[in-house]
């Protein structure tokens, strides 16, 4: 009897500690983000208050209004940054997907000499640190005159995303038995038709997850963008965050508002495809 009760007590205790640890872990994950969201609605006086104001009061949209208002105190051409980011990220993602699909298909379906070496070589280009790459790119682009343009940044992001896209898509195409396309070819499809009608629909989820990764990488990239863009006409959102810092002070409220605007698209996209995201990563890696 006693042993029974002891083990019951033990399992109860384990359950409680499990939940408590989980709660603490989730709080640590959530609080920094929520802190940013909360502060984007608070007036600067409250953010700076000493002693701190814990219970939120006087929440308003002033920071957003100032941000979108443009002119005057704390005004930032945020819509311009948002459009730049959107154009650059979308275009580079689409191009990277096509290039990556062609490459991934080649690696999954064809046998050729030096395949592994080429594959590793392609992946290694992704490992080059952004800062180290930005130095020569800065000079080359300045010489060719594509610095500070959408085109220049799109080109860079395509190159950044292609290796990873190939890796993920290769993993997905390998999941599809080659017989499927062969059967279609016997039925009179060309290889091109067989690809679009048979193999692509099956691998669509993989392509989607690769696309999300490519988009998020370009949307969030900073190291290269901060050096390769100068003017409002090409600055992206992550670089725009810097506009809120001056030499000695930072406009925290305004920055938080821009931060919220930066997260929302990423958040929505990730929620839509989160299931594919996980399977994409594991397919590409484990079974590839």
């Amino acid at each position, binding site marked *: 009897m006693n042993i029974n009760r002891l083990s019951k007590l033990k399992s109860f205790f384990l359950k409680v500690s499990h939940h408590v640890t989980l709660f603490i*872990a989730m709080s640590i994950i959530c609080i920094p983000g929520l*802190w940013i969201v909360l502060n984007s609605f608070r007036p600067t006086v409250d953010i700076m208050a000493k002693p701190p104001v814990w219970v939120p009061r006087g929440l308003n949209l002033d920071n957003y209004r100032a941000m979108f208002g443009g002119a005057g105190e704390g005004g930032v051409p945020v819509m311009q940054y948002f459009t730049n980011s959107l154009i650059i990220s979308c275009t580079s993602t689409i191009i990277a997907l096509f290039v990556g699909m062609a490459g991934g298909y080649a690696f999954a379906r064809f046998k050729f000499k030096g395949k592994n070496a080429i594959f590793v070589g392609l992946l290694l280009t992704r490992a080059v640190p952004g800062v180290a790459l930005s130095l020569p790119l800065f000079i080359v682009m300045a010489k060719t005159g594509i610095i500070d343009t959408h085109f220049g940044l799109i080109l860079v992001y*395509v190159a950044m995303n292609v290796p990873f896209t190939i890796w993920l898509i290769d993993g997905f195409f390998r999941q599809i038995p080659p017989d499927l396309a062969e059967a279609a070819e016997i039925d009179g499809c060309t290889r091109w038709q067989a690809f679009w009608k048979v193999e692509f629909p099956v691998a669509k989820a993989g392509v989607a997850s690769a696309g999300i990764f490519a988009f998020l990488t370009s949307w*969030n990239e900073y190291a290269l963008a901060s050096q390769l863009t100068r003017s409002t006409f090409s600055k992206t959102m992550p670089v725009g965050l810097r506009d809120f810092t001056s030499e000695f002070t930072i406009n925290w409220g305004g920055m938080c508002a821009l931060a919220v605007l930066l997260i929302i698209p*990423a958040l929505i996209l990730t929620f839509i495809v989160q299931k594919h995201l996980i399977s994409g990563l594991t397919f590409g890696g484990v079974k590839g």
Partner: protein
Amino acid sequence: MIYKKLPQWFLLILPAIIILAAVILIPLLFSLYSSFTSYRLTRPDTLFNWIGTFNYEKAVKSGVFWAAFGRTILFLTIALNLEMLLGLGLALLVSRVTRGQRMLRTIMMFPMMFSPVLVGFQFKFIFNDNVGLVNNALQSLGLSNSAIPWLVDEKLAMFSIIFAEVWMSTSVFAILILAGLFSIPQDPQEAAKVDGCTPWQSFRHITLPFIMPFIFIAMAIRSLDVARAYDIVQVMTNGGPARRTEILWTLIGRTGYVDAKMGYANAMGYVSIFLAIFFTIYFFKKLNAARAELGMAR
């Protein structure tokens, strides 16, 4: 027609090769060349001033460089190991949950969507000595009377940066390890239970070998862009104050853009490139070995 003679696979990977050559390979060759010159941004003619390995010798002899190099290695070692351990812990915690697991998984992915710059600003705000969340909380709870200089003191600043990095990247590990936990077949677990294994034994000898490939995938993915941490450090402290948190990447950026010594910066840049490539190859080798062990390799 010349393209008819080329094999199909080559035509398919050609676009990838062309764009990577144009955007990454050629600039890198240029930077290799310029690392042997005394190139300064402000004086373009110095590009043709060949000085041999002087820049590399200068870096090797420089205490600042080695301090940054050591700090980078230390930073990566601590951050990656912590991320792996915390990710494993988080995955195990979440995998035990029966109700609301989907929601927990979604919350877990939250930090992955944050831009590294944003993570930097966010924690710069949170660790701010005056208006930061951490100091406010400590003072309100009466745990500390003075403002703790989180981003000024050498050790505390390093801690804050590592905290930010770990916060951002643990979810990559947690999500992949969780996927690994779900893929484990149940039979060996139950057999172990019948044979009287302790929970620790069955974790160590059954669960862990199964999720090892997943850990290495996460490591491999992370190693592809370890330098993402540059964004965080650049925003939080920019290597300062007085180089106390200087890592290789911030040192390169400052030498290149602020001091305009492009030749010297490119020489150090090459060191960081080899460091990154070493990390990547190491983890991909581990990944292949772990795959082979499970018989997943083809």
